[in-house]
């Protein structure tokens, strides 16, 4: 089956700076895929190359099998992109904005679908409002609607929830999840790692223009961080265990990073031997943030 997105050895240079230093990855149709990385890692550059907003220095990018340069018309028809910046055209209303966007994609009469998208994004009441008069959250919804006017099989969202309130964020994710269930491929970049953990089936992590991790979310969580043990003790932690401490909390408790759950018994045995009483104990599962920090520090 043709991958929804195929990126083969894509580089992007700005003079001496390598914004992308040979990125290869593939996203299967129907996936919910996360693209994570610190600022300047190359996420937006990569997405811009997919969307035709930027051109790769070398390498190939395809959407639904269509080369983004050689077959740009087919590639762009297959892609809906929600840009990171809250951009809008101040001359027009919501309806005009969406009607124009449909027309750019060659759709002359798209009213029924536009109405459906507007309803799903709770924008129906604002349809004749000028874009200038909308709140930031509403503008963000219109950006999502604009990306969907041509019913693209692949939807790319570049930090769609940056600066968005909780209610809209949840509504947005419900809608995007539904699109994914309906068969749309979703690619998401976000700084909210708990969002990526909850939504994405697979995640690629970028650092300095390279893919430093690429796996299923559950594999990343299992492979790259063991478990964490939070202890409040009756006395000081014995010296040999000090090196496992990753955090000392204000309430006197300590957080230890362990390779796996089996290591907990070894810690408890060491405490018994040193006659240190355990007042409270909690075992934490690693979250994506821990994995992210660990991978970024390691690579």
């Amino acid at each position, binding site marked *: 089956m043709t991958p929804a997105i195929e990126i083969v050895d894509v580089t992007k240079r700005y003079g001496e700076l390598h914004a992308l230093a040979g990125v290869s990855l593939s996203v299967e149709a129907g996936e919910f895929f996360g693209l994570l990385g610190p600022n300047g890692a190359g996420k937006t550059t990569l997405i811009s190359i997919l*969307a*035709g*907003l*930027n*051109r790769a220095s070398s390498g190939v990018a395809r959407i639904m099998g269509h080369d983004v340069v050689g077959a*740009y*018309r*087919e590639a*762009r*028809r297959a*892609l809906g*992109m929600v*840009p990171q*910046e809250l*951009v*809008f*055209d*101040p*001359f*027009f209303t919501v309806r*005009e904005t969406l009607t*124009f*966007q*449909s*027309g*750019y*994609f*060659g*759709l*002359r009469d798209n009213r029924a679908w536009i109405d459906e998208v507007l309803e799903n994004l709770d924008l129906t009441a604002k349809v004749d409002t000028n874009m200038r008069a909308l709140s930031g959250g509403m503008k963000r919804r219109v950006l999502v609607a*604009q990306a969907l006017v041509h019913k693209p099989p692949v939807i790319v969202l570049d930090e769609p929830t940056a600066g968005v309130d909780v209610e809209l964020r949840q509504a947005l994710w419900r809608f995007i999840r539904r699109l994914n269930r309906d068969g749309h491929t979703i690619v998401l970049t976000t700084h909210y790692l708990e969002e990526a953990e909850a939504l994405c089936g697979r995640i690629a992590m970028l650092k300095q223009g390279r893919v430093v991790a690429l796996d299923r979310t559950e594999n990343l969580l299992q492979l790259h961080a063991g478990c964490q043990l939070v202890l409040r003790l009756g006395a000081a932690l014995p010296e040999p265990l000090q090196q496992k401490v990753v955090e000392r909390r204000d309430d006197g408790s300590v957080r230890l990073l362990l390779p796996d759950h089996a290591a907990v018994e070894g810690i408890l045995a060491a405490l018994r031997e040193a006659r240190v009483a355990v007042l409270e104990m909690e075992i934490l599962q690693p979250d994506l943030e821990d994995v992210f920090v660990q991978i970024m520090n390691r690579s």
Partner: protein
Amino acid sequence: MTGFYTLFQKEWLRFWKVSVQTVLAPVLTALLYLLVFGHALSGRVEVFPGVEYTAFLIPGLAMMSVLQNSFANGSSSLMQSKMTGNIVFVLLPPLSHREFFAAYLLAAVGRGVVVGSGVLLVTLWFVDLPLTHPLWVLLFGVASSAAMGALGIVAGIQSDKIDQLAAFTNFIILPLTFLSGVFYSIQSLSPFWQAVSHFNPVFYMIDGFRYGFFGVADTSPWLSLAIVGGSFAALSWLTLTLLRSGYKLRN
């Protein structure tokens, strides 16, 4: 074709929605020029035999408005879209660089023709203007507007900031139009400045346009047509080359 037509429609509506600023204001400016210069020079200057100075001035003013507004349309639209970031809405769809060019160009010609017609309509109340060769008027009006429209697109692509575009307008477009024979016939200039004027393509735009009204001109209308057509072809080639490469738009 739907993509091209939609982009043209959007560009047309963009200036039409603010027509007080984009149509009425330049018509009023031209009218003020006519009142001031017409009053100051009427009866004292006869540029062509039997043609009053006020009548001589009107085609020049109309063409100056056409050129400035055709230039302003594409340049300001692209500039604003780049600055606000909403240029992505026209870069993401599957529009070819030719469709992109044609839509922006047609809207620029549309605004130029609307403003030029407005200037002629308003000033006709003041002077009885002959229309010897209406087809030449139309031809020069549209061709010159298209050349300036293409230059406007180039300026819009090239400029990253408002002051860069303002410099383009103030240091290139305004001198070219003001020193092209809008207010005078180049026959009244010294031989040196006459020769210099012949290197200004805008001179041919105005001279050819004026020929359509009076049947006389400073130079052959065929030469003017060749130069205006050549300017349009060269600027179109430049614009299409920039758009195809994605220069300053797709990077």
